[in-house]
């Protein structure tokens, strides 16, 4: 019978199906970061357990770390303690850790793929919801809580129920100036932030096949914002070309043999899904969120909603509350919204291709005088080095951006990078929740190109008619 990639990975990783219990599923790769792991290691110590497979586990520090120059210890004592706790735990339990000074440091979901630690057919977990990113390679990848982190550390398995499958088919070709970020925001706008609950989404169609790995990662990254357990894309030549020569590939087989193994994970022609959603990407324009949930989104030619047009009372209340928090009147055209700050980075859009897109827009331009701060935070130190080798850093700095070290930074504002109350920000990250980028901060999610354009004009504008220099 024709199988989906999800079914293939599930079947291949079943350790046991005890009666009246969840299935025990083997985990091939476990990523760890400093925020969601300390209590898990503590739990191991309290019950005198070891890490079963330290060699399948990799840690990086990303959420708390400063993105300014990394000389001397972290000033905030709590952040410092958390980062030091991770280093200590990794040393005690024999886990590889890419600490702040390591060349391989960066956001966990940027680092794993670029090192070749994320491979097709794997099961991957991390105590972080955006673990869905790794699904771009055809790996079944999702976020887990800290108790589950402890479970994976102790047993290298996870208890799981099978998910339903949803095919999201992206038909047609993406317009110039429109990016993977716009597509995934449009998908969330269509199915809603709980539209994917209970499902694993597989993305298919011509538009997916035409996308780079960076673009596919952006799509899978935000799949969690649609409520789904995981996002998946069947591996193909684009996947293999990205992986070739990555430093952590398995060494026991020639690359051609690996490729053939990986290819076999792809969904079989004619396989069946529980639900199918079709999106015509030709019609998608650059997207901008206007509210406090990623589903509160519209195209650049759109406007904030009119409240009386919404029939569902709970929704109307949610819209009203969101507009109030965002300081926007109903029916405001998106192009009339001016921003104070711009943030380009995060595990959604902090990869080299994202930086290239933004630099392409910024080249020969300067940020508007009304912009209080424009931050460029690469997703990893490797991305930073690559961008510097290409001279992108000069373009950002010349335009008026701050060029930072890698980290999560103003995506969640756990370090010193944050919005002040009332600040309005064009951000390439993934969550526009109240206070996400700092208490009282107002976040509009956009693509790197749209963020760069907003930095120059001081307000949202349609990057499809940009004056490229």
């Amino acid at each position, binding site marked *: 019978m024709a199988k989906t990639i999800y079914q293939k990975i599930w079947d291949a990783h079943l350790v046991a199906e005890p009666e009246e219990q969840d299935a025990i599923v*083997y985990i091939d790769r476990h990523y760890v970061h400093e925020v969601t792991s300390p209590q898990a290691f503590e739990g191991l110590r309290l019950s005198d357990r070891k890490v079963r497979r330290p060699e399948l586990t990799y840690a990086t520090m990303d959420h708390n770390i400063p993105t300014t120059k990394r000389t001397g210890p972290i000033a905030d004592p709590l952040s410092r303690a958390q980062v030091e706790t991770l280093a200590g735990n990794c040393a005690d339990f024999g886990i590889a850790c890419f600490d702040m000074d390591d060349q391989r440091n960066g956001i966990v979901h940027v680092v794993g793929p670029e090192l070749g630690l994320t491979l097709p057919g794997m099961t991957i977990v991390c105590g972080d919801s955006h673990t869905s990113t790794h699904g771009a390679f055809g790996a079944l990848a999702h976020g887990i*809580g800290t108790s589950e982190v402890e479970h994976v550390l102790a047993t290298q398995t996870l208890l799981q129920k099978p998910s339903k499958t949803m095919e999201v088919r992206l038909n047609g070709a993406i317009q110039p100036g429109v990016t993977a970020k716009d597509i995934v925001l449009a998908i969330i706008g269509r199915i809603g932030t709980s539209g994917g609950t209970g499902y694993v989404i597989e993305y298919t169609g011509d538009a997916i096949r035409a996308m780079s790995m960076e673009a596919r990662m952006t799509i899978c990254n935000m799949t969690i914002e649609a409520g789904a357990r995981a996002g998946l894309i069947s591996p193909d030549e684009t996947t293999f070309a990205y992986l070739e020569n990555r430093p952590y590939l398995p060494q026991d087989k020639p690359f051609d043999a690996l490729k053939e193994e990986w290819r076999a994970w792809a969904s079989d022609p004619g396989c069946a899904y529980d639900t199918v959603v079709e999106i015509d990407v030709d019609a998608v324009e650059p997207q901008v969120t206007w509210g406090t949930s990623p589903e509160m989104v519209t195209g650049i030619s759109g406007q904030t909603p009119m409240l009386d047009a919404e029939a569902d009372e709970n929704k109307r209340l949610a819209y009203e509350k969101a507009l109030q928090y965002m300081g926007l009147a109903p029916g405001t055209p998106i192009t009339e919204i001016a921003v104070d700050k711009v943030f380009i980075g995060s595990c959604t859009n902090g990869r080299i291709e994202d930086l290239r897109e933004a630099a392409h827009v910024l080249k020969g331009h300067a940020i508007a005088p009304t912009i209080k701060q424009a931050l460029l935070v690469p997703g990893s130190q490797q991305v930073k080095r690559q961008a510097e080798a290409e001279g992108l850093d000069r373009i950002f700095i010349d335009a008026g951006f701050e060029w930072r070290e890698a980290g999560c930074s103003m995506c*969640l504002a*756990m370090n010193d990078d944050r919005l002040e109350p009332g600040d309005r920000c064009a951000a390439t990250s993934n*969550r526009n929740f109240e206070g996400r980028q700092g208490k009282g901060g107002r976040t509009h999610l956009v693509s790197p190109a749209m963020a760069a354009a907003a930095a120059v004009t001081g307000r949202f504008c349609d990057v499809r008619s940009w004056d490229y220099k």
Partner: protein
Amino acid sequence: MKAFTEHTGVVAPLEAMHVDTDQIIPKQFLKRIERTGYGDVLFYDWRYLDDGTTPNPDFELNRGRYKNASILLAQDNFGCGSSREHAPWALSDYGFRSILAPSFADIFYNNCFNNGLLPITLPGDVVNALFTEVRAQEGYALTVKLAEQEIVKPDGGVITFDIHPFLKQRLLHGWDQIGLTLQHEDKITAYEQAHGIA
């Protein structure tokens, strides 16, 4: 882990869709390395005024009548956002034992079961009716019976609910997941041997 069998408690309403984990517990409190002590900062940005200590009089949960509430009534997609288990830690540390909502985000839902917290999914109209009843009657309390999968209302009316049988058993017995899995350690070892994981 704490077991959940039956619980009677005052119900507090939280009238918002998509309550995300950043609202349940903001990031600045994720820097601690302990599992306990998060109850005081639950719903921090909503619950306190800008000084961070004065209770916000406009936040419904701060009203005297909900002071000892232990059942939370919420709306769609509760717990969306990050995987932080600090969210259920904060809810249970505050004193909540059960949350009723039309839908929950996936990771949050799972995390609850590792912390003796019972999330119950109910139809939207049932939840909306409960909001009305809770607000109409001070001290409105419900009894949640997990074994029977029933919620008993003050007037004796009964609401039934669905729950996955395994999750139910885990909560009823307060089972430790790791201990449960390690009963099958021979199978894990066999899997590793078959896959060349030495």
